[in-house]
């Protein structure tokens, strides 16, 4: 049996110098170089902005401007006149925020609940806050619930539906919502504030809960969220400030406590319910600091894809049963949120990736203690290595910060419940670590009041609660320092920061050494199946991937994408036999890629995609990828990235056909000249979008000729070794 050792190309995947810096880069349009890279380098990773908190910032600059910020003036920062109330000046009939109680003639009569919404909308979400206030307005509050909204809009944003354009007001406004469809009342105005400052939280809590006393108190922080690092907020100051670090989550509870003290609420635990109606704030580092301030903590571990809270239903529920316990309300809210996000019209991301969790915050101390025991067991183990932990982290997928259209953009945020479950169930993990992980898992379950999970997450048994467990090569000194500052409470109590440091210290940039050979590279066919054999003794080896390319007579390769994949254990020898088939769409040659590179490579249930172009009846063309499950016989979803768009969108083919019955999808292959390295795109034939809304997929025998098989072997730190083998297919395989 002939054996050929292929050319071995070792490459270290350059670690991203700054995790968030990479996030902030907008998605590149597919370029031919991009696809070619996916063949010879590590798997393609698109860098897209996260849907929420889309401009997380670098660094850990402390918040500034805690005393109210500086007045911006009466017009938008760009000179546009405000739409209604003029920033910096109270609207007629309403006074300044500081004088609210006096202007009202004293505090309002006590109600059952006061729900305060810290409406931090001074950025891209100004119109979205209006949408949610419409839901609040429609709630049946029956005089039992006062809803107060502090609203800071971005005056550089245009008011929805204004033509000619009008802009949101500058300044800050306070609204009272009585529900039942009644007018939303503005009850105070203020100058332009910096709502990223904890002192503004303290001040607002003090003023609102003094003016609107109630038996029960709820606070909803409404805005962008970015987990422990991105924090809450990012006040653009009417579009004039790009990079605010936001408010670290652990800075919020002290501000809340101080605010309630100012309001005269004398209670050890003054807050009955707290929620972040944002993205990415259901994480261990973020939730833990709230353990002593509220019994009920509600947030999303994942991006909120738009719908947010169902304010109408949940506020009506609170009014209908005002004596319900905070936990009962929290459980109901999760159920209502789930229905809100699974209703028709929500993005596909909601269906498959959403998370929303209600926690008994008082039990988070128990979780921290159990986690502390786990970290001690891991750090003290002589057999369980950092590479083992990194391997488990990689397999805990989908990671967070994910959209259906892009996959995860925050691959360091993993589901804590899934991580614990993997630690407890993976073969070879020492017993003391298994026990500790089991205890921590029980503590997390015990703290969970209710959870809503998208179907990808539910299928993996995720908990809907994330934790930082990033790639060691991305946990650089700057990031570890930031963790020590912005997640210090959790880190100190759980020891998790030490675990991250272990990953960071253990990471290397050395590609795994790979032994490799091929059989039947010449005269291959059904009776001489080309077979790759490879192994690696590197202790940190993680997985392998095999890709296929057709070699043309002129020396160019046509990439057909992935044909094989799996995990790789150190010292084990693996074999991959190519059966002479490759993927097709409607009988045409296509390129097969992973929807996302996250996850256990042995899983057969990951989503796949075929790239192409979507063309509309007016001739406009956009990059588009068919998305489907491994083993699907048809494709029915397409992800579209149009020119000029910062983020792709997903549609069903049926929906596209309904909009445009002459539209087409054209698959493409990437071609690269091996000598010149020049890369081009080779388009197939346009396929009319079918009435059925489904395009047929297949695995078809490829024609005889010369092929190249590329075997990539990855380690847990993201480094890879790539080998290329020539295969001459002399006899075609049968279908």
């Amino acid at each position: 049996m002939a054996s050929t050792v292929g050319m071995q190309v070792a490459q270290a995947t350059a670690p991203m110098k700054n995790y968030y810096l990479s996030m902030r880069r907008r998605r590149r349009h597919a370029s031919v170089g991009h696809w070619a890279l996916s063949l010879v380098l590590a798997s393609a990773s698109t860098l897209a902005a996260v849907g929420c908190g889309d401009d997380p910032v670098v660094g850990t600059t402390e918040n500034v401007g805690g005393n109210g910020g500086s007045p911006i003036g009466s017009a938008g920062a760009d000179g546009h006149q405000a739409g209604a109330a003029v920033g910096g000046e109270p609207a007629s009939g309403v006074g300044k925020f500081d004088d609210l109680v006096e202007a009202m003639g004293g505090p309002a009569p006590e109600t059952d609940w006061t729900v305060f919404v810290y409406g931090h909308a001074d950025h891209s979400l100004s119109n979205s806050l209006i949408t949610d206030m419409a839901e609040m307005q429609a709630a049946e509050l029956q005089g039992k619930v006062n809803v107060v909204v502090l609203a800071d809009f971005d005056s550089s944003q245009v008011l929805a539906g204004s033509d000619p354009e009008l802009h949101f007001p500058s300044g800050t406004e306070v609204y009272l919502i009585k529900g039942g469809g009644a007018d939303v009342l503005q009850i105070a105005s203020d100058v332009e504030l910096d709502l990223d400052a904890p002192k503004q939280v303290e001040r607002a809590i003090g003023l609102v809960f003094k003016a609107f006393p109630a038996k029960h108190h709820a606070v909803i922080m409404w805005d962008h969220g970015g987990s422990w690092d991105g924090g809450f907020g990012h006040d653009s100051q009417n579009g004039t400030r790009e990079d605010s670090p936001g408010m670290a989550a652990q800075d919020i509870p002290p501000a809340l406590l101080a605010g309630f003290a100012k309001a005269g609420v004398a209670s050890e635990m003054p807050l009955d319910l707290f929620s972040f109606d944002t993205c990415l704030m259901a994480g261990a580092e973020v939730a833990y600091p709230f353990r002593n301030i509220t019994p009920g903590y509600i947030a999303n571990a994942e991006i909120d894809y738009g719908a947010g809270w169902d304010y109408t239903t949940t506020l009506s529920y609170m009014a209908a049963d005002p004596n319900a316990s905070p936990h009962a309300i929290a459980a109901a809210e999760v159920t209502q949120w789930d229905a809100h996000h699974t209703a028709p019209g929500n993005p596909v991301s909601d269906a498959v990736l959403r998370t929303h969790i209600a926690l008994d915050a008082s039990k988070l101390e128990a979780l921290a203690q159990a986690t502390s025991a786990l970290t001690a067991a891991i750090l003290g183990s002589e057999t369980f290595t950092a590479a083992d932990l990194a391997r488990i982290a990689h397999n805990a997928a989908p990671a967070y910060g994910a959209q259906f259209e892009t996959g995860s953009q925050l691959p360091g945020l993993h589901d804590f419940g899934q991580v614990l479950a993997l630690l407890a169930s993976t073969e070879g993990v020492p017993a003391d670590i298994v026990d500790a992980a089991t205890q921590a898992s029980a503590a997390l379950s015990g703290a969970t009041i209710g959870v809503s999970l998208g179907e990808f997450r539910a299928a993996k048994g995720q908990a809907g609660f994330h934790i930082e467990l990033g790639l060691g090569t991305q946990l650089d000194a700057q990031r570890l320092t930031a963790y020590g500052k912005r997640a210090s409470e959790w880190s100190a109590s759980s020891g998790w920061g030490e675990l991250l440091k272990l990953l960071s210290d253990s990471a290397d940039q050395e590609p795994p050494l790979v032994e490799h050979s091929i059989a039947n590279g010449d005269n291959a066919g059904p009776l001489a199946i080309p077979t790759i054999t490879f192994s690696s003794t590197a202790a940190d080896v993680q997985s392998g991937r095999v890709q296929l390319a057709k070699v043309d007579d002129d020396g160019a390769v046509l990439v057909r994408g992935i044909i094989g994949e799996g995990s790789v254990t150190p010292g084990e020898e693996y074999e991959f036999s190519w059966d002479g088939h490759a993927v097709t769409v409607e009988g045409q040659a296509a390129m097969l890629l992973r929807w996302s590179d996250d996850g256990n490579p042995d899983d057969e249930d990951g989503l796949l995609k075929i790239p192409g172009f979507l063309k509309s009846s007016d001739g406009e063309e956009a990059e588009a990828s068919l998305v489907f499950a491994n083993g699907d016989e048809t494709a029915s979803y397409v992800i579209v990235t149009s020119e000029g768009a910062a983020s792709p969108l997903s549609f069903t083919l049926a929906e596209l056909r309904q909009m445009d019955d002459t539209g087409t999808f054209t698959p493409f292959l990437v071609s690269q000249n091996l000598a010149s390295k020049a890369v081009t795109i080779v388009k197939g034939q346009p396929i009319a979008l079918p009435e059925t809304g489904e395009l047929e997929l297949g695995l078809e025998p490829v024609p005889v000729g010369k092929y190249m098989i590329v075997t990539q072997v990855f380690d847990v730190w993201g480094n890879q070794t790539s080998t290329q083998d020539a295969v001459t297919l002399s006899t075609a395989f049968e279908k």
Partner: protein
Amino acid sequence: MRIHRSLLVATLTLTLTLLLVAAWRWRSNESAVSTPESLTTLAASARTAEALSTEGDPAPVASPGSAAMNMASLAASDVSAAAALGSQTYGSSQNTVNALLTRLDHQDLALYGNIERRLHRDVPREVHGLVALKRSGAPRQQLLAAIREANIDLGLRLLLARWVEASYGVTAAASPPLHGRVKGSGPAMIQAFARRK
């Protein structure tokens, strides 16, 4: 008892409150917050929809929280409710939020939110015009035609088309069951490795 005390406080301070309000209005030239001119005149200034045949063309569906195309309701809300009998009616209904809630359809607000959240960009000028066109009563086909003619990218075009269909109650094409399962029933397109020892 606390309620009674509050009412008493409210009563005693009523005169003072009214005086304060009067003083405040005097300081601000006695002008209530003026409704922005273009908000009150949007309906009039919106392009008149061409008379297209609307047979079989659905009318816009008003969604919760909407008073689509009803500018009269904005005028009706122009009543200052400032400072009367304590906090029960304290506040002004003349404000940005109320103006928007009164005149905008939920679908329109959702469209703006989608553009901002999902396309990560400001709402293009063309969209404002399309929303105004819809509010003026343009039929579905006219809106779809306007979207096709607009100088916008395909992604936005598709998002707008989805907005039109939702606004006019046209049932979206059924979603195939991508969710509910994560693995197909056919042969795997990516093969696993075999261990040799």
